[in-house]
Each structure stands twice: as C-alpha cells, then as structure tokens.
C-alpha cells in the first residue's frame, strides 16, 4: 500500500455518534409529546377487545368493572365467570337481574370507600363506576351489571372505548 496509516493516527479514530444522537433526540421529542402523566391507566384483562368510539371525553380514575370474554372482574379480582354473556342461574337473584357475587363485591368496595371518605375529607364517594366491556358482550349481561351496580349505589356509568 502506498499510504499506510501510522499507529498514532489509528488510535485517534473516534466513533461518530452524532447521527445516533439525532435519532434519539427525535424519539425523545415524540415520546414527550405522547407522554401524559395523568392519563387513565387501563388495568385490563388479556381477553378483552374494546369497542371504538368517536367520543373525546377522557376517562377518570374510579372503580373499574372489567367484563372480558369469560369473567367479571372488580378492582382486579375475578368475582364471577360467564359463558358468552350468560351467567349460571345460581349467581342470579330471583328477579333475574341482580348478580349476587358482583353485588357483594361492589357493596364491600362501597363500604370501604365510605369509610375512607369519613376519615379523609379529600376522598369522596361519588357512586361512579367505569365499565370496561368486551365488544361482543350482549346487552342482557350489561343490563344485569348496571342493575346490580345501581343496587350497590353506583349509578353513574362510564363506558371505556378506544378512540377512532
């Protein structure tokens, strides 16, 4: 070779990280734009496909009732299982609407919230509940859940959907 790099020159070579830094800076800006510190944290089940909606209202962080393809979950704990929206008759009250295990779970949660509200004035028991339901659940089950929640003093419902 005509030109041979000296040993000293070879040691001086540095890795150029400017392009990598450019990419990271762009990624950082993109993530900061999409970052929301007070966003609604979805504590959901893996067996759940949300419906889609044009609504622009943001969800609030209150009691979650998750109805996935197999279970009804309150505050992270499975309270009763269903089969394609149909519950076993032993879980239903005489009038055909009230789901007994769900009612018991909601009542426990309601009493706990009331107790906390009595001690801490910043916490209010507002009777609001968020319903995360699978898109294929029939209205018959939704009606039973809403009736049961109403009986347990939860009368303000918010359905969760993915923004279209």
């Amino acid at each position, binding site marked *: 070779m005509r030109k041979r790099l000296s040993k000293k020159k070879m040691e001086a070579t*540095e890795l150029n*990280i*400017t392009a*990598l*830094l450019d990419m*990271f*800076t762009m*990624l*950082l800006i993109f*993530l*900061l734009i*999409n*970052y*929301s*510190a007070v*966003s*609604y944290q*979805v504590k959901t089940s893996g067996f759940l496909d*949300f*419906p*889609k*909606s*044009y*609504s*622009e*209202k*943001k*969800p*609030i962080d209150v009691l979650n009732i998750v109805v996935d393809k197999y279970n009804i979950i309150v505050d992270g704990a499975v309270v009763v299982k269903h089969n394609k929206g149909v519950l076993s008759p032993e879980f239903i009250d005489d009038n055909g*609407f009230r789901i007994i295990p769900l009612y018991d779970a909601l009542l426990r949660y309601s009493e706990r919230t009331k107790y906390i509200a009595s001690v801490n004035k910043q916490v209010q028991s507002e009777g609001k509940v*968020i319903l995360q*339901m*699978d*898109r*294929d*659940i*029939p*209205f*018959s089950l*939704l*009606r039973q859940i*809403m*009736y049961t929640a*109403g009986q347990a003093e939860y*009368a*303000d*419902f*918010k*359905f*969760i*959907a*993915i*923004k279209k």
Partner: protein
Amino acid sequence: MATGNGGKKRIPEFRNLNLTPLLDFIVAVIPVLLLSVNFLEYVALDTSLPIYSEDVQAEHSKENQPKLGLSVAITEEGFLIAGQGGVLNISGKNFLIRKTSNGLYDYSSLSDKLLDIKKTYPDEWSIIIIPEATTRFEEIVSTMDATREHLSTNSLGHISRKTMFPNVTLGGGVL
C-alpha cells in the same frame, strides 16, 4: 505584548464535543417514557341506569319533563326511532332505518335522521336507547356515538361535530 511563544498566535486544536453524557441521559430517559406512553387513546362514554318498568319510566319522564321523549330501539331489522305520545311528527309516523345490504346497522343514516329531528327540536338533549337482549356492546357504543354527535367531513378532511342528544339513557324495559 509578549505572548511567550515567540509572537506566534496559537491555533486552537479542533476537538469533537463529548456527547457521551448526553447520550447516556437520553438512553436512560427513553425506557421510562416508553413505559409511560399510551399508544392507544382511551375515551369514556357517559350513560345512566336503564329503566326497568313502566312505572319507573313514567316517573322518570315526569321528573325531567321531556318535550319529545325521543328513543331509538336497536332491533333485528334496524333502528326504530320513536317519540313519546306522538310528539315526533316529521313525516307523520315512526321511522325505521333498515340495516344495509351487508347486514350492518346504518349508523350514518341514523345520525342524519336525528340531525333533522334536532333541527326541529333544538332544545331537546335527551335520548333513550333501547337495545335488544342480544345486541352487542359494540353496536350500543356505535349507536351512542351516532346519537350524541353528528360528524361531517369537509373538503379539507376536517371533521366538524354538531352536538345532538348527549344525555343518553339505556332503556332496559323491552326484553
């Protein structure tokens, strides 16, 4: 002035800025942000309790003094729009919006028809949606969307929203 190096100006040697600490910082921040970012945006739809009996329905109506008592029933044939006590009288009868040829509910026609009703009754904000027991949750949510706001897209692709009937009650009296 003596420079101490024989009067020659010292040319500063070119050095690359050390970007490694900045890179370290960004690499540490990105995973934190990635964990916090919601790539799916969740929205909420408000509704109130279903109505279970004629008595409750009558009481509810009396409290709110509805002028129109607008309701949309989601049936196997399509959407049935009705007013309470014959108040709704745009074409003299109730409306049935049939499903499309591929068997899907026609949400845009429902929204257009409700916009016509809204123009006639601008002070009316409530609507009762009456699904059948087998109606899927996704169909209820889409019907709520179609009744709450009318969406129209202009030539530039911007979506404009016209609020129609935002106070949605799910009626559960019809089995």
